[in-house]
């Protein structure tokens, strides 16, 4: 019984921390992009706009919830919730430091891939249930994009699993003691990074919500907190992808253990790595223009998937030889 209570407490802590981080990642993005474009970003609410996420949250909560005529109501209601649930449950297997994780399961990486595929339903269903052409096109684009890049992402992680000999995220971190996998698997790292951007529908692969073509894509008809949930799912998804990249390629919670660095809590190293990836997301958004849809598909199927397959073969050969 006491174990159960501890587990519930752990889940509450992780969800609370993640939601807080998600709120401030939005602020971080606006600030970073603002400074990259020689603007200041949010400045009005609180010092340097620090209370902006709270103001946004309150605004979203009190906005009117509009449901379009002839929308499929049950699915319209479920779609955003599904996205948030899939993104948040992924945090269950991420090891934050040696002794803190909610579930230590042997199929950790596969679990995350499974949840990311469930999460893609949220966007497809939102597009269909809204009964609007923009939403529908956004949903279709997203489903094709996510299915295509999921293959590249899964294949890029195979190299990591081969090196670690396990799909358990704790084992993967343990296998990187000393040398992070990014040095052994640079190709897989590159493919994963690009596939992660496409999976979370972020620029330059944000065709599902390309505002110049599709208003806001799958989220066009959503308003108030339901729209807020999509926002939350997207940023939580970015957070999950960054956490996986940190755990699989940069050694997770491990950091330098000499001098003063040895006294830094391990979770700080993980968070630093995660935020480095999140900064990379913003940086790429501020730098690159949006891809065309056929370019995106060509890139995924003719470049990333063969590259990831070649990486598996090379890794297997080297592993056999050594």
């Amino acid at each position, binding site marked *: 019984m006491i174990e159960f209570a501890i587990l519930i407490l752990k889940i509450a802590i992780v969800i609370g921390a993640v939601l807080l981080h998600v709120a401030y990642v939005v602020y971080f993005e606006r600030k970073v992009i603002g400074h990259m474009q020689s603007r200041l970003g949010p400045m009005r609410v609180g010092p340097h706009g620090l209370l902006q996420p709270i103001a946004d949250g309150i605004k979203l909560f009190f906005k009117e919830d509009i449901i379009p005529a002839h929308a*499929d109501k*049950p*699915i319209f209601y*479920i779609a955003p919730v599904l996205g948030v649930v899939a993104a948040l449950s992924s945090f269950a297997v991420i090891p934050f430091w040696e002794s803190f994780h909610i579930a230590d*399961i*042997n*199929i950790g990486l*596969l*679990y995350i*891939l*499974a*949840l*990311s*595929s*469930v999460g*893609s*339903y949220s966007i*497809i*269903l939102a597009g*269909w249930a809204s009964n609007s052409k923009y939403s*529908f096109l956004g*949903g*279709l684009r997203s*489903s*094709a994009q996510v*299915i295509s890049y*999921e293959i590249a992402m*899964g294949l890029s992680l195979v190299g990591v*699993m081969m090196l670690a000999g*396990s*799909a358990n995220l704790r084992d993967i971190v343990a296998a990187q003691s000393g040398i992070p996998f990014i040095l052994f698997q640079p190709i897989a790292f590159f493919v994963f990074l690009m596939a992660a951007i496409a999976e979370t529908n972020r620029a330059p692969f944000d065709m599902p919500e390309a505002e110049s073509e599709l208003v806001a894509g799958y989220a066009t008809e959503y308003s108030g907190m339901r729209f807020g949930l999509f926002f939350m799912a997207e940023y939580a998804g970015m957070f999950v992808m960054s956490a996986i990249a940190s755990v699989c390629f940069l050694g997770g919670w491990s950091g330098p253990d000499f001098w003063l660095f040895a006294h830094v809590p391990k979770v700080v190293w993980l968070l630093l790595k995660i935020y480095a990836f999140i900064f990379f997301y913003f940086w790429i958004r501020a730098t690159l223009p949006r891809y065309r849809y056929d370019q995106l598909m060509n890139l995924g199927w003719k470049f990333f998937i063969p590259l990831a397959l070649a990486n598996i073969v090379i890794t297997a050969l080297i592993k056999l030889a050594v």
Partner: protein
Amino acid sequence: MTLPQIFFAYFAVALTGLSLLVVTRRNPVHGVMWMLILFIHVAGLYLFLNAEFLAAIQIIVYAGAILVLYLFVVMLLNLKKIEKERKFQHIWIVGLLVSVAFLTLLIPLLGKFSVYPPPGEYSVERINSEGQIMTVGRVLYTKFLLPFEIASLILLVSIIGAVVLSKRKLN
């Protein structure tokens, strides 16, 4: 009832109920959604049987790939029109006949069904000590190599078939 029995009873009832919901929905997208819940329950049943790898594959392959493609097709078809077409209205009779035939085939086998079959080469302890992914991989690439390769060949043929069919009208 013990806890495992309660779990199994839940899965048995839920799986049957959900399958019925899948085939009785008028709106095919709702049918697909119930099927998603059905697949998640199947994965839960696998987890309950200690087959965690199979559970993950169930979600990744069935829910993540196959069902999304179903959803794609179902959303693009004009189903209101198809519902009115004659040849799709009486198809259930064929389905009923086929399922009754299968059921009669199953009845003689019911007597041979045993809850505790004789243990095979792979005990739970052995699989857990080796790791499930490794066990499945080893068996697939040694003992069942030929069936595995045949399956991959069939898949390759269907991929080539799809490419040929869709590219014929181009040029």
